[in-house]
């Protein structure tokens, strides 16, 4: 993952899931974080959109399998 993106995503994750020492990896999924469910997932998406000033489509979000996919998608949207 791009360093800057990873840094900003880590901040977002820590705020949304209220876990101050969360470390992100590419293959992390909702199963790895207790507070990450379908409700907080959307909160996360909205926060990412706001932070990076981008918009996702439903199809793009449905295709996300892990944190790595999210980082790649953010990268794609920024470029």
């Amino acid at each position, binding site marked *: 993952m791009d360093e800057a993106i990873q840094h900003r995503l880590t901040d977002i994750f820590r705020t949304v899931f209220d876990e101050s020492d969360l470390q992100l990896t590419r293959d992390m999924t909702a199963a790895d974080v207790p507070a990450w469910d379908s409700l907080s997932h*959307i909160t996360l998406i909205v926060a990412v959109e706001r932070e990076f000033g981008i918009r996702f489509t*439903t199809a793009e*979000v449905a295709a996300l399998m892990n944190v790595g996919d999210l980082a790649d998608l953010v990268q794609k949207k920024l470029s």
Partner: protein
Amino acid sequence: MQLSSVEFLLFVALSVVAFRLAPRRWRPDVLLVASYIFYCTWNPGMAVALLAITVICYYAALYIESSRGRPLAPRLTLVVVAALILYIVAFKARAMLYPGVSLAIPLGISYYTFRLISYLLDVYWGTVPAERSLVPFAAYVAFFPQMMAGPIERASSFLPQFEAEGNPWRGKTFEGATCILLGFFKKFVVADNLALIVDYGYRHLDSGSSLPNILSFYLYPLQLYADFSGLADIALGIGLLFGLKGPENFNAPFSASSISEYWRRWHMTLTSWLRDYVFMPLRMATRHWGTAGLVVSVVANMMLIALWHGFTLGFIVFGLVNATFLVVDVLTSTRRQKFWRRHPGLLTAGTVVGMLATYHIVSLSETFFRAPSFADAAHLLDGLAAGFGDLGGAFAAVTAPPNHHAWVALPAYVLTEIADAVRRKKGMSLPAGIPRWVQWSAVTCVAVACVFMSLLFLARQTGTNPFVYANF
């Protein structure tokens, strides 16, 4: 072909043997034929409809995939999915308008239309490649163990197993047989006996004592769980005999300490289906509406769960009760999390209170689910506060024949909870490294139990109560 009949057991045995003896190329065909034979014993006319719909969706998916990026893709998806929704709504509506026509809803319609809709949407979104050959696809849609009461399995979990190499049923025969036995035990020993007590309460709403009402109110969720999870176990067990591992539908639902958690543990394949294909798209569309968007999504999702069962007032109220408590839960969840973090000592007590509260919400909403009419549900709830009256007499009346052995359901339920817990932690297959006599003993006991069950079905003392979820 009734599930609890010798004919069905023979049919499963023959299909499994044919499947295992067939060369790998022909296995999908064997399963397809078996599934359609099973379906035809219920309704040959609708079997033709099933086949037609399957073929249409098969070709539609291929077109959608090949025209990705072009406007044809979303339009075709919309048309076919809308048609499927119309198809299922039409049958549910007809069942509501003409009640009393038994099995007015053709077998499995709620389950296979959902399988097809999920498949089409997955292909449209690109999360699953369109299936190139018709036979495995048709076998997935018509897979007979999941026709009666689910689980609703996704193509992405079923099809790859089907096309896997090697001997898929190694170690799964024992697990499959045990699951099937557990499922029938849940149904006949737990659910049917609890049903005797619960039915008594709903038939004697004016008994003058609150005892029957209280029993019906608190026991029905257990009955429904035993009935439904029993059926799911049978479906999974039969799948395992074919070497196919299906999705779990339940995960200790009564250990949930909030209503949201309950719905993540109950009928999981339906709730996850709705989450992926309704809630998420809807939430994405409303994500900038703030709290209102959240409430709308939660309520719509819950109402669809309710309406999936049918279009009666009972189901609607069931949905509304759940939706109300879900919204409260969701809106207060962050505040509650903060509270527990500040007072960790209270967490255990809080969990227990949460479990009790959740069970009460579930019992309340399921009263509307079970009662034959809204008036009856209100009547039952009214009677809860009526006072025990002649408690001894009421108890004698509830436990009079034919209910005099129904108490067996309670220790039996405890046994099934233990079995479920073992299944969740370690699975039902024989662990490796156990002494040979233990292994042979286990297999012998399972074999004896299977023979016993066949004798029970043959002697026709069981199998008079239909499975609750086969009507959806």
